[in-house]
């Protein structure tokens, strides 16, 4: 049985190019959701958020916010479809975005219509 952990991660857009990024354990912003730090406690989430706000001031990222996510087998999955699409790219252009750059989350695009 794999362990399922639920918590929050912090995401933002990189200031210079707008690419969706996630705050990782070493305090860097990664394009890969799998590298995000998953906060399991509210205090940890608040710390992530504070770090993100500081990086906004430092003009690294913009528009940061916490999102609900879960980790299973070392891979992180955003809870909401909007955030899943942000970690993949447009579901109608699989040749573009993270899914094409090799930085996508470890799940397939939400099924189209």
């Amino acid at each position, binding site marked *: 049985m794999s362990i399922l952990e639920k918590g929050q991660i912090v995401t933002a857009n990189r200031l210079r*190019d707008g690419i969706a990024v996630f705050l990782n354990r070493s305090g860097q912003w990664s394009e890969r959701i799998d590298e995000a730090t998953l906060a399991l406690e509210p205090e940890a989430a608040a710390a992530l958020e504070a770090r993100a706000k500081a990086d*906004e001031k430092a003009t690294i990222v913009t528009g940061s916010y916490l999102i609900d996510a879960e980790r299973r087998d070392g891979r992180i999955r955003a809870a909401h479809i909007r955030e899943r*699409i942000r970690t993949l790219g447009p579901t109608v252009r699989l040749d573009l975005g993270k899914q094409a750059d090799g930085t996508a989350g470890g799940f397939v695009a939400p099924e189209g219509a």
Partner: protein
Amino acid sequence: MYRYDEFDHQFVRQRTAQFRDQAERRMKGELSEDEFRPLRLMNGLYLQLHAYMLRVAVPYGTLSGRQMRQLAMIAERWDRGYGHFTTRQNIQYNWIKLEDTADILSALADVEMHAIQTSGNCIRNVTTDHWAGAAADEIADPRPVGELLRQWSSLHPEFSFLPRKFKIAVTGAPNDRAAVKVHDIGLRLHRNDKGEAGWEVIVGGGLGRTPMIGVTVRDFLPEPELIGYLEAIMRVYNLYGRRDNKYKARIKILVHELGADKFKSEVEAEYARKPQASTEVEERELKRIAAYFAAPQFDKLPRWSAAFEAAKLKNADFARWARNNLGVHKVGGYAIVNISLKPEGGIPGDASAEQMRLMADLAERYGSDELRVSHYQNIVLPHVRKDDVFAVWQALDGAGLAAANHGLVGDIIACPGLDYCALATARAIPIAQSISRAFTDIDRQEEIGPVSINISGCINACGHHHVGNIGILGLDKKGEEFYQITLGGSPSEKASIGTILGPGFAGHEVAGAVGKILDTYLKLRAPSEDFIATYSRLGAKPFKEALYAAA
């Protein structure tokens, strides 16, 4: 051909230089996001799901070959090789970097283009009939009036901080292709009993979360009085428009809350003050601007083109495309070519850089160097000799641009939705694709005839779903996408807002539901009755029964 004047050149260059400085200050941290956001939005730069998005204004949807080529260059150099033509006759790029934006604005300025007034609480890019200057039913080209309004409203200090965004549409033809009744102000040219032309002024239409059909505040306004009269409307709006709640800030809410009569009397009282009694300036300006939109030199041609008729007889695919995708031109021997950007299973409104270049080539070679972007997310070559239409079609066909579905089921309007847009609640494009694939049989599309399908990925209604004959609105229900269907909307001179049919559908059920609606129409229609006419005659009931009958 539309052109800038010297003033425009200077001010667009200045604005680009200002933005370059602002973006640099933002990246150095001298400006916060809160300070920078309104500045970037004033230049059409949004932050979306995957990157920044740049919305470029295409005034009246009018482009030259050179401009279209520059749009292609920008797509290749700074984006991912394509662009998205929008329901506001603009183009959007989806993968823009903040650090490149000033260079892009500069490249746009090189071809007299910009991204000003594509965002923010100002008078937005004025839209018109995409067949302007070409349509057989037209009384006069509406673009000079649009341009007069643009020059009047651009950076107008009194109208730079309105309660909310403000959209104006203008049509010079009785068949309204500019959806003037669902704009903040719609202007419609018509003739009185004496045969003189004048403008009907319609105020307070709009879509979004509170869809409304506008009310006529003046039935017949002489053209030179337009600026003075619109100024009066804007002043009443600026004075009384609500600023406490952004969802109640559009002029439609003011017209609704005051009541049409009270609103009219306020406008008339303001107009009667007439700060400038004479309309001499407007008359002079209109004359000057009209020269910018002078029609191309049309050849004297027979109405009937032997080459065109012969090509139709020889090639059934061409004949079908010609039947569906050509509009009637005001000059004999010419046709309006509608290029559908809705290939089977494609993304409505998207065009690759190569396709843009090909369309630019065709405009230069066969179309008096003119292209139009339509709010149906298609491209128009407004002036093509019938003798050349077959050659144009062959070139389009080779580039995947010959979909023969103009005005039919496959000609679906869809906003970018949750695949790109930060505001969206559900995806719109995959729904368009699934409907398109369900109707690959073009014979069936022709049998069904004219019908419009509009899809929006959120309540802001960029896909204009309220005025689709069949409207589809994507919503979020506890993290799942679901879709509401409305019927009976129309953006035409007989504008109407669609009615919600019943409970919503999951994404994979929508195409089937649309199929049932259209089957019901085919069963119940009277001879030569199009979808919207059948709906108007019968109402929602038979369609509801078909959709929600117990299985």
